[in-house]
């Protein structure tokens, strides 16, 4: 079956339609679309950061502007790849429900679509701090909710287990990245 068009799917993902997440869970070809969604969100965040830094007349050095945009781009990609791996490990073991039957790729597909509301991050570049801050908050809230639905549908368990899985996976990922940044490991 040919994958359905991306934009309507992103809209359905943003509307937290459980059916959409079930659909992409069962469709291995949707992994490419999930990757595109993550990259679009990453680009929106980076573009928003660039626009904000360039548009607000600050004297931030160009290297700092580029670095901040780079971090903004990489964060969703890292969260998607590594956070989903932790969510799979935690959700398929500790939080596993009686119906849970999944694999990492399924979770990657559903979680990727959960990044769809992150396109709002382009608005963080609007030269109004109120719009900018509001867009960041709204995008975060929305993606958080979509992420819980994505985990729930991929791992076929309850919302409470999905919230637990999401929280533990986030914590593990944070500890990993924080540890790598803090430990005396030569790079």
């Amino acid at each position, binding site marked *: 079956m040919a994958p359905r068009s991306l934009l309507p799917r992103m809209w359905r993902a943003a509307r937290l339609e459980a059916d959409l997440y079930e659909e992409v869970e069962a469709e291995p070809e949707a992994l490419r679309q999930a990757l595109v969604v993550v990259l679009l969100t990453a680009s929106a965040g980076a573009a928003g950061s660039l626009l904000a830094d360039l548009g607000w007349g600050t004297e931030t*050095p160009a290297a700092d502007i580029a670095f901040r945009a780079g971090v903004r781009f990489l*964060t969703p990609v890292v969260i998607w790849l590594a956070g989903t791996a932790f969510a799979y490990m935690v959700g398929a073991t500790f939080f596993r429900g009686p119906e849970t039957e999944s694999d990492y790729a399924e979770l990657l597909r559903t979680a990727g679509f959960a990044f769809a509301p992150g396109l709002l991050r382009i608005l963080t570049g609007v030269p109004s701090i109120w719009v*900018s801050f509001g867009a960041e908050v709204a995008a975060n809230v929305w993606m958080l909710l979509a992420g819980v639905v994505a985990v729930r549908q991929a791992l076929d368990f309850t919302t409470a287990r999905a919230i637990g899985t999401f929280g533990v996976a986030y914590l593990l990922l944070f500890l990993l990245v924080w540890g790598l940044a803090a430990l005396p490991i030569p790079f």
Partner: protein
Amino acid sequence: MVLPTGAFLLLLAAPCAGAGVPKGYCPIPEPGEPPSCLEPVRERYGDLLGEIERGEVDEDEAARLEAALSDEDGRYEALSLLAYAYYALSRRAATAPHQDPAVARRLERFNALLRAAYQRHPPGDPFRASVEQAVQDIARRAPPVVVRCRDARGRERPCTSTEALLHGLRDFQERTGIRGALARLLARMLGREPR
């Protein structure tokens, strides 16, 4: 999938309503509206509220307000009053023929207090969400007043009071959660100075 900044509580945090002890942030009243949910604040900080409305702030009263922001019992009232004071002082400053340096200093101090209150509470804490709500309320309602800011190189430059406040919170967001940890990791890998 995203940084759980606790910001989602911002959308859920109900403004305090009616009389009684506020359970959350009390928004700045709209023009012409009675500040009904500020009544408990008026009972506790009557003198200070009156001073704010007259455009005068006594140092001792202000220090009491600042201390109350860390107090478990009165912190929502203190936050609501601080936002109202920010709004009232900004309005007075915006209509005055010359800017009073004392007002700018007071707003800079308020910015620092709000930033500290935000940083002191972890993501997901209802009080942190209330601080975010207060900051958005201030940004929407308070007229801009020129204060001193520091840019990324640490140099002083003029900016508006609300711009300074929201930039402070934005920078804090950049330094926390997975994004902040990733920034530190990348900075280390690239041999950059951490910010």
